[in-house]
């Protein structure tokens, strides 16, 4: 009984919900990036690599200038460059998008690993370079429970939800969004109606670079203030899973990211419970939970979740 009580005690602790939100935040950015790219018909598994580049670039520029927000800005620039490469290879040259994505993941791992020593003088991880502090929302912070969850939290959490709202509005409420969806469903028809298929796809992929780089910046300067090799840790792929489960809709992707976040936080809290006494060497098994969950969820949902019709198919204008 004591164990059940202890497990339930996790859910009445506001700290749990705060951790869940912070675990979900990079996934929200990543899945939103996936939505923007795939809704125009370009599969982007490079997200994993763009997250890593974003994390690295923000730390580099924070280290060089001492300004954390400038670091974030440069992370976005790096994300745009990586996304531009992906767009160029998949749209202009009609390359295999999954393989191109793999190339960009390797490239990010190579570039970040290669530059560690010349810039920071050591491989593996950097020292603490500075991080973005939590913000306190006046008034809200004083509300019991809710205040402890979102009253004092990283601004990235608010930015993530803002991006979701913006993404939903752009995709479903604007002419540009309609064109994006048209291009992802039926590029030939969109082209016939005068929509520039290539330009719209470039836009979608570039936006995915922006969001994925924010996920990376959050992981480094937003959370721990340092860069560690391979710190993206599969989040690009979990983000893609969240996008599939969320049916390629920004709100759906956000909700499934939150679901993953809650599970991640739960696994995390479970192993630090006093009453259960998890031995140190069993902890890695808890770390497998988000990945097992991703497989189960993707396998369980994918048949009922329909991707955009032209997703992953290069478009070539017939002469």
């Amino acid at each position, binding site marked *: 009984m004591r164990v059940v009580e202890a497990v339930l005690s996790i859910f009445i602790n506001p700290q749990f919900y705060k951790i869940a939100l912070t675990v979900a935040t990079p996934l929200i950015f990543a899945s939103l990036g996936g939505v923007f790219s795939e809704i125009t018909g370009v599969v982007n*598994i490079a997200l994993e690599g763009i997250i890593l580049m974003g994390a690295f670039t923000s730390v580099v520029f924070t280290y060089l200038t001492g300004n954390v927000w400038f670091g974030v800005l440069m992370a976005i620039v790096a994300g745009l460059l990586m996304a531009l*490469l992906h767009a160029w*290879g*998949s749209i202009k*040259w*009609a*390359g*295999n998008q*999954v*393989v*191109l994505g*793999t*190339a*960009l*993941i*390797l*490239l*990010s*791992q*190579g*570039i970040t*690993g*290669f*530059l*560690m*020593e*010349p810039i920071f003088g050591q*491989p593996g991880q950097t020292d603490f370079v500075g991080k973005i502090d939590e913000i306190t929302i006046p008034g809200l912070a004083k509300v019991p429970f809710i205040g402890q969850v979102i009253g004092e939290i990283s601004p990235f959490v608010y930015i993530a939800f803002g991006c979701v709202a913006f993404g939903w509005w752009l995709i479903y409420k604007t002419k540009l969004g309609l064109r994006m969806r048209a291009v992802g469903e039926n590029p030939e028809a969109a082209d016939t109606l005068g929509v520039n298929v290539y330009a719209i796809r470039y836009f979608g992929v570039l936006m995915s670079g922006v969001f994925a780089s924010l996920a990376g910046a959050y992981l480094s300067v937003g959370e721990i203030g340092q860069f560690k090799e391979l710190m993206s*840790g*599969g989040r690009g*792929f*979990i983000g*893609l*899973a969240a996008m*599939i489960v969320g049916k390629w809709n920004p709100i759906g992707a956000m909700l499934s990211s939150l679901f993953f976040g809650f599970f991640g936080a739960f696994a995390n809290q479970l192993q630090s419970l006093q009453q259960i006494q998890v031995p*140190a*060497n*069993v902890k*890695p*098994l808890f*770390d*497998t939970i988000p*990945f*097992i969950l*991703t*497989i189960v969820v*993707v*396998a*369980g949902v*994918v*048949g009922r979740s329909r991707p955009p019709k032209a997703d992953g198919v290069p478009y070539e204008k017939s002469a």
Partner: protein
Amino acid sequence: MRKVLESILVPVLAVLIALLISAFVIVAIGKNPLQAYAVLVRGAFGSKQAIIDTLIKTTPLILTGLAVGFGFRAGVFNIGAEGQMAMGALIAASIASNFGNIPPVVAIPLTLVIGMGAGAGWAAIAGFLKAKTGAHEVVTTIMLNWITTFVASFMVTGPLATGSGTPKSPEIAASAQLPILMKVGAMELSAGIIISLLAAVFMYVFLNKTTVGYEVKAVGFNPYAAEYGGISVSKNVVLAMAISGALAGLAGVTELMGVHHRFLGELSGGKGFDGISIALIGQNNPIGIIFAALLIGALRTGSNEMQFLGVSKYIVIIVQGIVIFLVAADRIVRTIYLRKKVKS
């Protein structure tokens, strides 16, 4: 002959372009790329010991290259060779440490089969999920890779833990270790190289001379047509993933039996991901894959030497990234080549 030349044109040019771009990267950190590449070549082929080292590194790469290449031929993108390789070695290590009383004639094949089986089973999960639910193998195998990492870390710090220092498993029985073919200094080339070459022959024969191989290829080439022709797509997807995983598991278990003799966290060390580059450079052809593995093996060996110049061995990953990019978008390379041809 012309056809062979055409097919190696893209990968060869892609490698050259990648080395050229990487040279600029080396210049950017203030080092001399010509000197760096000279050291790299010397590090890989400069002495008898270097050549043996290159061959040792090439052995598992041939197998992971075959694993990924076989997958591509069958229409699946097995990005999980890394995890399947580690799983093969991990399971084989936990069992083969108890093989003390079994003679090598039995212990060696048995350990190989266990490693292949573990890799095959691990990959078949992704194949099964793809066949039954449509879950994309890229997402599922990546997740399986992460799960492997954590399970392996649990095993070597928990049930299998031995000694102090780096977490590792106990050594496998001497009777399960592969015979050494050649020894130069501290470098021991095991019979693993023969196993990997035999695997290349297997892949060639299986894909080109057997009915099952034909079916697997047909599904990879066009699943709709294959289904129409009476070939079960789902059965072949599972089979293709399992064979691909078996090859990756074989990479892990030969590394275990021929090099480390115990399981360590860094046993797979990116070799599964190297398999992707190798398959693409080798154009998914067994002979091409052998040469591509030799290339990446040489880059890996030589780059260790290059580190002393202050050029990180990560340059090899950058080279691989660029090569994969150029092979995936092969029209870039073709266009550059054609433009040159028109000019001359």
